[in-house]
């Protein structure tokens, strides 16, 4: 008979590595967060300050601004992707010649390095170089400049994220839609339901678990976006218009070597994400349960 000990032995290497690089740093940072520790300050040692770091954090305008940008970006981008992706998935439901090719090309953005995506979009939108400002200016007389306009920059990062992640929504929705049971639909057709009614009262409720799964994964991913925005707007410019929380930590907090304060911020960011993750996960499992019963 196989013993549980062998099982733990097989699992051990993975657990040890995940503990060392994934969990231990946060236990350490929980400790550092209670200290005043800055390599550039006069006394370079650690001074215990209790929850002072957290108290400053709550009134830190840059931090709150970054939090606001992150939430706005996530909300607009994810909702747009969900709508566009769902519509595109509907268009892929039936078979037509060339479908496989369209699908394959649609998958490309998912695998490109986020940083390269930032580079691609930067080349598209640099004022005086890229085709987007060129076309908008020459054909429509619209002055588009992501270097100076906060609105233009924000719209551009949202569009970039839609370009990057809509394929994920499309393909997942497609997988969900094509595995839906056919009987309820056919029964409704027999009863004389029209297309809208079928969509509203049959497809949508049946798709709820899939939609929520996609929503969950997309929100988590959008909250962590750093690379492509950092590359596109050169660190969240103009000003702080596109500076998400990740960019704020990466470009502002990290170089300041204010370890105690930075630790507190990292921990709070993780905490927000875990709470969001948990709330979404609970709603997800609840829906799964009601859908299953």
């Amino acid at each position: 008979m196989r013993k549980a000990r062998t099982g733990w032995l097989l699992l051990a290497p993975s657990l040890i590595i995940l503990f060392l690089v994934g969990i231990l740093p946060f236990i350490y940072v929980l400790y550092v967060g209670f200290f005043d520790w800055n390599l550039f300050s006069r006394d370079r040692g650690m001074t215990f300050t209790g929850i002072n770091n957290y108290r400053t954090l709550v009134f830190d305008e840059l931090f709150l601004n970054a939090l606001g940008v992150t939430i706005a970006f996530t909300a607009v981008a994810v909702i747009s992707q969900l709508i566009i992706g769902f519509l595109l998935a509907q268009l892929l439901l039936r078979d037509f010649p060339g479908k496989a090719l369209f699908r394959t090309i649609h998958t490309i953005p998912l695998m490109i390095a986020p940083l390269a995506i930032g580079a691609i979009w930067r080349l598209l939108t640099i004022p005086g170089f890229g085709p987007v400002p060129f076309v908008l200016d020459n054909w429509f007389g619209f002055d588009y400049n992501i270097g100076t306009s906060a609105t233009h920059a924000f719209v551009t990062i949202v569009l970039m994220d839609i370009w990057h992640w809509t394929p994920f929504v499309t393909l997942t929705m497609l997988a969900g839609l094509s595995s839906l049971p056919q009987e309820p639909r056919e029964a409704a057709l027999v009863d004389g339901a029209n297309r809208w009614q079928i969509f509203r009262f049959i497809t949508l409720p049946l798709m709820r678990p899939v939609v929520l799964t996609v929503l969950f994964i997309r929100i988590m991913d959008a909250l962590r976006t750093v690379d492509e925005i950092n590359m596109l707007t050169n660190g969240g410019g103009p000003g702080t218009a596109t500076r998400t929380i990740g960019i704020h930590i990466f470009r502002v907090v990290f170089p300041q070597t204010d370890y105690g304060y930075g630790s507190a911020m990292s921990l709070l960011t993780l905490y927000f994400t875990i709470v969001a993750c948990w709330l979404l996960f609970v709603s997800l499992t609840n829906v799964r349960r009601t859908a299953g019963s």
Partner: protein
Amino acid sequence: MKITPRKVLSYGFTYLCWIVVTIITILPVWWMFVVSARSRVELFDNPTLFIETFHTENYTEVLNDPTFREYMWNSIIISTSNALLVTVLALLATYALSRYKLVGSDNIFFTTLTQRMAPPAAFLLPLFLMFTQVFSFGEGRGRWDLYDTHIGLILLYCIFNLPFAIWLLKGMIDGIPPELDEAAYVDGATTFGVLWRIILPLAAPGLAVTLILSWVFAWNEYLLAATLTAFDARTITTGLAEFVTVTGTNWGEMAAVAMLTLIPSLIVVAFAQRYIVRGLTFGAVKD
């Protein structure tokens, strides 16, 4: 099938939509390719979609640069080692999770998911402190720490790749009937014998997909590489980011580097397209 005007219209609409989507997907990448093929003289010409003459100077310039070659080499070493390590560890771990009744194994499974979902930016400072303060030995010139080493990044990329690999492989290992390994145990095989002779051949396609996708994720990573390396272990993505800050306006070379960065991704899309979605949803949605 009868061809009715209504059918023509609806298929036409589908094609129209997909052609537009395909153009939107390809055009930005194509424009970057156009920029990478321009000479320094034509760089600031008006945007066009056509390459009149393909100038290789941006590519040769970059590929002859010793720093960039080192970055690329580092990326290859780190991604390959990480992908191999992750696949082997994940195979062992999923086999344990799949075949042994372990106390709390469901919780372990879920915890790995939250690790994958955690924001990497929150890891920067903790990991930097760990690498420079905790995992460091010796003083002065003999000092050694994980900061700016290949091993450091290879281990780090396990944060997101290991949970991913475990989730991807779990379904595949679960799909192999346990009776097969029971029979081998009866014949006196050891655990590793079973893994080697029964699980490995049967899970080979899944392992290949895990290996390839992990490789790409490691290759694409930027944030951790940018903060936890300085000179010796810089990767190709950090090289791409450096282009913007150091040489400001040389968009041609930057485009060439970005093209080189995304070639592996294009190859993977061509071969593993079917598994990408399943992998990204952690098997939550079957394709």
